[in-house]
């Protein structure tokens, strides 16, 4: 192959992979919906991409690459079912039973291509699957990540993740966990599971729990993209708006969160001119939607707290009494030691470090905060502000022993130095 041809081949491959990443979830959902089998759908999806890599460099990239991939994948699936009668019989039974369970066809939304990913969202977040498996499967099937990328997100070897995904798919097939959108009366029970999965992807992407980079923006972007899709599919669900708002309002600070050398910059030291106004405006509008028309949900409340931070000119100008009040409501709705920790930090801003420290000390025996670096780090900051440098140094050392990412570690070391540790 000539160098020019090799270059063109690489560029086509890059373009196929870009399209594939974007279309993969949609493609997979359509194929799962049609054939009722995740394995078959994944295999023919991969085959369609391989076919694209063969044909597109010769014939050019088609006008509607996604439609091309879908048609090709469907043909491959039908070919496979012709060859494999056992599989065909099994899938025919599945289809008959799916019709029996869901006799009314999904409403056609009138959009260009019906988006069938909602059913896949609910399958991937099914309560019969383990929590980590739900996140892994959602990243694989809906965010379009490769098994290797999912493995990196989980900090496990790729082979381990591959085995895990095989095991989850086997469970879905053997227990016949359905590909369906829950009925309206089931939604309140099932939707929080889907939101939790998306938020887990976001938090993993935003504050990577380990590794050299503080933020993994691709995962955070994926989570926001997933939430936007979900919001389009479930426009009346206020907690979907709340989750999207929360992520946008946190993500708006991404550029200000790290310094030039990749070092972490805390909220109080961030250059607020670098916050993304467009994301803040969009997030604030969504907070209004999330908190209007019924009692607030946990995501709507967290988004409202994030909005108060984003709208403040500086740390002193932040509406801390309102933030503490929102944490109070959040604690009654979704009690958690991490929320209590954040509330203590807000109280420290409202009433002074001593008040915050008293609340933190009351959380000292909390098993769920053991091993969480932000507990000793928050305590250390309050002790430092009180001039209790010796105790602050001890707490910074505790935090350093627990922290996962390199930039956060560097930040804690600087703080430790500043108190003479």
């Amino acid at each position, binding site marked *: 192959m000539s160098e020019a041809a090799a270059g063109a081949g690489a560029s086509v491959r890059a373009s196929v992979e870009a399209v594939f990443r974007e279309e993969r979830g949609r493609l997979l959902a359509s194929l799962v919906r049609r054939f009722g089998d995740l394995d078959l759908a994944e295999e023919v999806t991969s085959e369609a991409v391989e076919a694209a890599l063969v044909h597109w460099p010769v014939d050019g990239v088609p006008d509607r690459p996604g439609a091309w991939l879908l048609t090709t994948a469907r043909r491959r699936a039908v070919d496979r079912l012709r060859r494999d009668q*056992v599989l065909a*019989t*099994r899938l025919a039974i599945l289809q008959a*039973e*799916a019709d*029996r*369970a869901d006799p009314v066809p999904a409403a056609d939304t009138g959009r260009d291509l019906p988006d069938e990913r909602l059913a896949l969202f609910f399958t991937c977040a*099914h309560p*019969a699957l383990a929590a980590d498996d739900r996140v892994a499967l959602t990243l694989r099937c809906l965010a379009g990540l490769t098994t290797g990328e999912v493995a990196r997100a989980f900090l496990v070897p790729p082979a381990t993740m591959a085995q895990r995904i095989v095991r989850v798919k086997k469970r879905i097939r*053997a*227990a*016949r*966990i*359905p590909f*369906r959108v*829950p009925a309206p009366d089931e939604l309140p029970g099932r939707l929080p599971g889907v939101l939790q999965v998306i938020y887990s992807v976001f938090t993993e992407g935003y504050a990577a729990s380990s590794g050299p980079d503080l933020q993994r923006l691709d995962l955070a972007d994926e989570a926001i993209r997933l939430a936007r899709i979900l919001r389009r599919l479930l426009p009346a669900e206020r907690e979907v708006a709340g989750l999207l708002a929360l992520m946008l309002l946190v993500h708006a600070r991404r550029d200000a969160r790290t310094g030039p050398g990749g070092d972490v910059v805390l909220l109080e030291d961030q250059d607020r001119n670098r916050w993304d106004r467009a994301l803040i405006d969009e997030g604030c509008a969504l907070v209004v939607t999330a908190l209007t028309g019924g009692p607030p949900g946990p995501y709507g409340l967290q988004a409202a707290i994030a909005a108060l931070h984003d709208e403040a000119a500086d740390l002193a100008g932040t509406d801390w009494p309102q933030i503490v009040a929102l944490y109070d409501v959040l604690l009654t709705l979704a009690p958690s030691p991490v929320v209590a920790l954040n509330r203590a930090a807000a109280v420290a801003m409202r009433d002074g470090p001593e008040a915050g420290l008293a609340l933190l000390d009351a959380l000292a025996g909390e098993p769920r905060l053991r091993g969480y670096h932000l507990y000793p780090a928050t305590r250390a900051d309050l002790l430092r502000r009180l001039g209790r440098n010796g105790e602050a140094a001890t707490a910074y050392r505790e935090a350093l022993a627990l922290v996962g990412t390199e930039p956060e570690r560097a930040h804690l070391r600087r703080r430790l130095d500043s108190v003479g540790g």
Partner: protein
Amino acid sequence: MKYMLLFMSAPTAEGAEPEEGCDFEEWVVFDKEMKDAGIWVSGHPLQDLTTCTTVKVGADGERTVTDGPFAETREVLGGYDVIDVPNLDVALDWAARSPGARYGASVQVRPIADFGS
């Protein structure tokens, strides 16, 4: 797709009354609901654990018969139903409707293995 609903209950203390709250009438109603829906395949309630006998045959062919269950179990199988429904969600709905899911008891839902397909 066939699923077995295994109704697990806390063991009944010797001489104690049957589990509080679990009304025979509720089981009759549940039984009728399954049959009316056309999903019921088979099922039986079981006598309590004091009537259980355990049989084991060793490698040498010797048969051992012991009184009671082989191991101490926290939960006891009180009965089962096999239902034929389209998928796990429907099976879970039926399990949740049964009296066996309430009063501190629980239902294990297990797909029936089909080695023929």
